[in-house]
């Protein structure tokens, strides 16, 4: 689960990670009051959406920049008004962009140098890792590729926690002066505590900055949490912003369906995450484009299949449907009945190819045949994928 920058920074402050003073506003009526809480300009005005690349983004009405530096508060007010309710397109949002519904005003900082700092899971060791770099404010992937020697990592032993020597190691490698180093050490420790205590999946500060008076501040904050751990963090669940999520994905989560919207034309309904991913792949392999990832899970009921059908048909781009089920334990006939019922309920104007295999498959195929539905059967995944691609083309 992702949260906004302003929410992440509020949590940072709670855990002792210093950030520039900032105030978020969710309505133009609150802009002036928010700005009044900040000391004198300059002010940075930041669009709050769950996507990176905001600064270089463009709004759909042509206004450039989702993050703006304002020399006066009047200028800040003007920028905020232009951003609010406007749709921001960045390299991470896709062409549809995201509507800005919160604007965050922060006190502009005097930057001496920019750094990078993050905490996440190191999959190779199955332990938390802290990643830091002297190259901040740029894409870390680019730094890792071009100048890997400028990236420093410490892997934390979860049985002991972050050790002092590890913090010192990072501080020395980043080349801070004595006063900065003291502040940076405290910040790194607080950031790690935040990461660990809140079950974060990733905490990224880019840039982390030093100021002329040797303060160390988190100028940006990107935080995501491990969805599996949310049951023990109701305070974090409360930060979820449904405006940032695809309505179809929200609807799917109500039925415990794993659904991700994509931009193709062939909707997929599959059981199992691995099979669902490879169904998308095989569609692409034969020249089509998947409209979604959808895993109905191992214990799919008739109701789940009906709900899944409604969700995939809610995507206006969909021109055909591919149902790919390997019923291991799951009864293929249950899926077949679900398909028949769903089609009865929502109608079917699009080509539908069904590939059923596994447990009770004969009964499932008989149910589909007896229904009189205009569907096409596929024998194998490859056969079915080729058929749906042809029907949609």
């Amino acid at each position, binding site marked *: 689960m992702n949260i906004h920058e302003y929410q992440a920074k509020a949590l940072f402050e709670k855990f002792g990670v210093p950030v520039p003073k900032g105030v978020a506003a969710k309505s133009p009526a609150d802009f002036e009051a928010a700005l009044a809480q900040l000391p004198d300009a300059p002010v940075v005005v930041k669009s709050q959406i769950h996507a990176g690349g905001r600064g270089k983004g463009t709004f759909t009405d042509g206004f450039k920049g989702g993050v703006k530096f304002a020399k006066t508060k009047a200028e800040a007010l003007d920028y905020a008004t232009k951003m609010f309710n406007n749709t921001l397109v960045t390299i*991470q949002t896709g062409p549809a962009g995201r509507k800005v519904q919160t604007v965050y005003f922060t006190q502009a900082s005097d930057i001496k140098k920019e750094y990078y700092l993050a905490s996440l*899971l190191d*999959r*190779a060791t*199955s*332990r*938390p890792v802290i990643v830091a770099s002297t190259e901040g404010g740029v894409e870390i*992937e680019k730094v*890792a*590729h071009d100048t890997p020697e400028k990236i420093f990592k410490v892997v934390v*032993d*979860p*049985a002991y926690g972050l050790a002092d020597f590890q913090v010192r190691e990072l501080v020395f490698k980043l080349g801070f002066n004595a006063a900065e180093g003291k502040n940076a050490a405290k910040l790194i420790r607080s950031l790690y505590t935040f990461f*660990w205590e809140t*079950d974060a*999946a990733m905490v990224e500060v880019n840039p982390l900055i030093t100021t002329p008076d040797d303060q160390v501040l988190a100028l940006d904050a990107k935080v995501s949490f*491990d*969805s*599996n*751990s949310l*049951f*023990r963090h109701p305070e974090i669940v409360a930060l979820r912003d449904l405006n940032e999520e695809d309505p179809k994905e929200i609807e799917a989560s109500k039925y415990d369906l*794993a659904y*991700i919207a*994509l931009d193709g034309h062939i909707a997929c309904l*599959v*059981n*199992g*995450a*691995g*099979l*669902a*991913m*490879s*169904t*998308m*792949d*095989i*569609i*692409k*392999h034969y020249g089509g484009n*998947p409209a979604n*990832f959808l*895993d109905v899970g*191992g*214990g799919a009921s008739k109701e789940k299949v009906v709900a899944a059908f409604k969700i995939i048909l809610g995507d206006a781009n969909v021109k055909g449907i591919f149902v790919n089920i*390997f019923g*291991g*334990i799951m009864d293929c006939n249950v899926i077949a009945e679900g398909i028949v019922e769903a089609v009865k309920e929502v109608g079917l104007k699009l080509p539908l190819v069904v590939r059923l*295999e*596994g*447990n009770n498959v004969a009964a499932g195929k008989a149910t589909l045949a007896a229904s009189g539905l205009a569907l096409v059967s596929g024998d*194998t*995944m*490859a*056969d079915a*994928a080729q058929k749906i691609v042809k029907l949609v083309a």
Partner: protein
Amino acid sequence: MSILITPETKIMIQGITGAFGGKHAQLSLDYGTQVVAGVTPGKGGQFFEHGGKKVPIFNTVAEAAAATGATVSTIFVPPPFAGDAILECVDAGLDLAVCITEGIPIKDMIRVKRAMTGAKTRLVGPNCPGVVTPGTAEGSKGGCRIGIAPGYIHKKGHVGVVSRSGTLTYEAVFQLTSKGIGQSTSVGIGGDPVNGTSHLDVIKLFNEDPDTHAIILIGEIGGNAEVEAARWIKANCKKPVAGFIAGATAPAGRRMGHAGAIVGGAEDTAAAKIAVFKECGIEVAETPSDMADALLRAAKTKGVTLS
């Protein structure tokens, strides 16, 4: 032979009185698996009955192991308690814990894995379909079925299958069985980013098992476990290996159902992994429908007969 388990292996089931655990306990009993104990704290002394068999239930894993000689546990405990259930198996000194549970907090698994350092117990999973060593009776009955895989699609034979994904494992096994090719053992290692046994661990076991003549390695986007396994295969494994990687079309940064299936950097994309497979002499299945055929191609190249 086989790896990890044989038809004689005695297993216990933690969470046998839950709906999910109970259903799969029944299916394993039907398959002929030696399910000798159940564990549900507070229900010790009761029995799990199915098909004329009475399986005793214990309060703790240690009691169950001592009383029945079970050396392996299958865990169907809900996510908030599953990490603890794994540690209980470690404490009881079991050989193997297979954790089926999906949705365990990553932090819990980080701590469990750290606590298991140097322990005798091997963990498979979590968030996995389990392990099957097929038997010789009809529908491969008489084998050892741990977890949630459909037993009937298997056939006793000489191909080892290892995968993160349940349904893709079934797909591969079904393709093999349909062509008359049997399996030594099929292992689902699970889709979580922090898990016990890795692809490489299983590949090493298959490589050492004289009864496994060829291997299907199924992976997906995220992490570098498949790459690590492929490099080891290139250096050490003479048996024919076919591979498949799911997720070529997955958008970067999105979690594709499995918590571990997320493209983080350039190295963990499907294309990068497939390139390494090819470089390491693994016959790559072009599509998921091609897995068994890919293995047949690999076997032919090395002059190995599979059926």
